[in-house]
C-alpha cells in the first residue's frame, strides 16, 4: 500500500490542523492548463489532491463539476491522458498524495487490471469511485486493495450506524464524509451537525475523516475543519476555473484564479482549531 496518504494526514495532525483536500477536473479547461494547476496546487497549500476523471454522465455531481467535465471532454481529455498527468506531476512532487475520483465505466472499458497497473505505474495513491458501493466490492475495490492502492469510500448522512461498518470494511486511506445528501456543490450543513457526524464515523474507524460537499470559503474550511481530519473542496475550484475563462478558453489568469482560492482555503484550515 502506498503510504503518502497516511503520512500526509499524520503530518497535518501533528500540526493540529485539518488537511486541505482539493479537487480539480483533469483536462479542464484543457490538458496543458489543468496540468499547470495540478502542479501548482501543493505550493498553494493543498495537502491532498483529488483528480477528477471526466465522465459524460456524472450522476452525483452538481452543475459546476458537470460543466468542468464537459469542458475537459470537449478539449479531448481521455483516461490515458489523465493517468499521464499524474506521471508528469510525480516528476516534481513525490510527497503529495493524489487520488483519482470519478465514475466506473471509463475504468471498466479501460480494463480493471490494466487500469490498476497504470495507476501504480504513474504514482497514484488511491481511488474514489462514486458509483461503486460496498455491494460491488469484488468488481474494483478488492482488486485495487490487493494491488496496493487505497480505496476511499464516501459515507453520507444516509449511512446509518448499521451500515457504516459495511461501508468502512474495505475502506482505506481516509473516509470521505459527504456532509449532506445531494450532489456536489450544494448547500452546507451546520458545523455542529457535521461535527456530530464526524464523531459518529470516528467511533467506527481509526481512518482520517474528511468532510466535503458544500465548502466554498476559507471560513467554511475553518468551521468544517474543527473536528474533521480534512476538508474537501471541489466545486469552488471548478467555479474559479470557469470564472477565469474567456470564451471558454484558458487565460493568463486561470492558474492564479485557482491557486489564490486554494491559498485562502489553506489559511482557513490553519486557523480551524485556534
Amino acid at each position: 500500500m502506498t503510504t503518502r496518504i497516511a503520512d500526509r494526514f499524520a503530518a497535518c495532525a501533528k500540526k493540529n490542523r485539518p488537511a486541505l483536500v482539493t479537487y480539480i477536473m483533469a483536462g479542464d479547461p484543457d490538458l496543458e492548463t489543468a496540468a499547470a494547476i495540478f502542479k501548482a496546487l501543493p505550493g498553494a497549500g493543498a495537502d491532498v489532491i483529488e483528480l477528477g476523471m471526466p465522465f459524460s454522465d456524472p450522476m452525483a455531481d452538481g452543475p459546476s463539476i458537470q460543466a468542468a467535465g464537459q469542458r475537459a471532454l470537449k478539449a479531448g481529455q481521455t483516461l490515458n491522458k489523465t493517468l499521464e498527468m499524474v506521471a508528469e506531476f510525480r516528476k516534481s512532487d513525490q510527497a503529495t498524495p493524489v487520488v483519482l475520483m470519478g465514475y466506473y465505466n471509463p475504468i471498466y472499458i479501460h480494463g480493471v487490471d490494466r487500469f490498476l497497473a497504470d495507476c501504480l505505474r504513474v504514482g497514484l495513491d488511491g481511488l474514489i469511485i462514486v458509483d461503486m458501493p460496498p455491494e460491488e466490492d469484488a468488481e474494483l475495490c478488492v482488486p485495487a486493495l490487493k494491488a496496493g492502492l487505497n480505496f476511499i469510500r464516501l459515507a453520507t448522512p444516509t449511512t446509518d450506524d448499521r451500515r457504516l461498518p459495511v461501508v468502512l470494511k474495505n475502506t482505506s486511506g481516509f473516509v470521505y464524509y459527504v456532509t449532506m445528501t445531494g450532489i456536489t456543490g450544494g448547500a452546507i450543513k451546520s458545523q455542529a451537525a457535521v461535527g456530530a457526524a464526524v464523531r459518529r464515523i470516528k467511533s467506527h474507524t481509526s481512518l482520517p475523516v474528511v468532510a466535503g460537499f458544500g465548502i466554498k470559503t476559507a471560513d467554511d474550511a475553518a468551521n468544517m475543519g474543527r473536528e474533521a481530519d480534512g476538508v474537501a473542496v471541489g466545486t469552488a475550484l471548478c467555479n474559479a476555473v470557469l470564472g477565469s475563462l474567456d470564451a471558454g478558453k484558458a487565460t493568463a489568469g486561470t492558474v492564479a484564479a485557482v491557486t489564490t482560492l486554494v491559498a485562502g482555503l489553506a489559511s482557513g484550515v490553519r486557523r480551524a482549531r485556534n
Partner: protein
Amino acid sequence: MASSGANSLRNGPDEDGRFGIFGGRFVAETLMPLIRDLEVAYNTAKDDPAFIAEMADLRTHYAGRPSPLYFAARLTEHLGGAKIYLKREELNHTGSHKINNTLGQILLARRMGKTRIIAETGAGQHGVATATVCAKFDLPCVVFMGATDVERQAPNVLRMRMLGAEVRPVTAGAGTLKDAMNEALRDWVTNVDTTYYLIGTAAGPHPYPMMVRDFQKVIGEEIRIQMQEAEGRLPDALVACVGGGSNAIGTFYDFVDEPSVKLYGAEAGGHGIDVENGHAASMTGGRPGVLHGNRTYLLQDADGQILEGHSISAGLDYPGVGPEHSFLHDAKRVTYLPITDNEALEAFQLCTRLEGIIPALESAHGLAQVMKLAPTMARDETIVLCLSGRGDKDVESVGRYLGMHK
C-alpha cells in the same frame, strides 16, 4: 416466478441483482440504503395478499385490464404470411403499457411512507402514467424530461401539467431520456428522505429491473391465455420494441422458457446502424458498460464515454437497455434487430391505414419487425406484436416528417 429449474433463463436476478454479468447496484452511497429498503419493501409487498388484491382491483377497474388481443386481418392479408395479432396495450388507461408499472410502484411508495414522487420520461408515456397515479393518490410529482423531448412530445407535456405534475425540462447533453435520468438521479440523491424515484423502464439499479419486469409481465401472461382462446396454442413468435425494454420484457418473460416461441426485440436503428451516434440500438451497436446503476449493453466511445444516440422515437432514444435484455441477448434467447426511423415511419402509416390504429412511434418499430418477419412465415403460424402505446402524441411530429402540414 423466477424458479423454473436449473436450466431456466428466468432465474435472474440473483441476490446481488445480477442477470449473468448484467445488472447490479452501481449507485452512489447516498442511495444505497434506500435501494436496500426498496428491495425489502418490494419483496414483502409482492407476497402480501392485500397488495396483490389492490393491484388486481386497480388493473381491472382503473387501467382496464386485460387488454384485448386483436387479430389484425388486413395487416395479415397485406403481408401475406403469418397471422398477426396485436396485444392492445395502447388501450390501457393513459394509452400505453406504462400504467402497469406506475400502479405497482405508487402502491409501494405509499407503503414506504414516501411523500414525493419523481420520474424520468422520454416519450412522455411514463411521465403521463406517473402523473396519473400521483393525481389519483394525491402525491406531488416532478417529471424530468429532456428539452428535445419536451418539444417533440408536446401533447404529453400538456397532459402531465394538467394532471398536476411539474415537468422539468433537462437541457444537459442532447436533452433526451439519458439526460432526464441523470437529473432524476441527482434529485433523488438530494431528496432521498422524502422522495420515491418511480423508474419507468426495466433498467437502473437492482431491484428496479426485477420489479418493473414483474409489474409488466402481466402482458405476456395475458397473451398466453388469449392465444389459447384464439388459436388453441402458443404463438410462434412474439415481437416488441426495445428502448429500456419494459414492454418487451413484460411481453417475453412468460415465454422465455418456451423454446417453440421465437422472441424478437426491435431496437431503434435511427439513421442506420452504420451511422456513428446515429442510432440507439445498444445491443446491435454497443457493448457492455456501467451506467445508471447497472451493467448492460451501452452505446459508448472507445474511452467509455456514453454516446447520446438517436431515434425518431423519444421513447427508444436511450443509449442503454435493461440488464435482463442484455442477458437474453448474450444467451441468444431473444433476437434483437435494429429498425430504422424510415422503417418505423412506414409501419406507422401502414398500421394507421390498414387497421385504423395509430401506433406510438415506439411500437411502430416493433411493427416494422413484424413486416419483415411475417412474409417469411407460413400462413398457419402466428405472431403477436405488443402494441405498447398509442400514437396520438406523435401525430404532430410524424405529420411534419410526412409533409402533411400544409
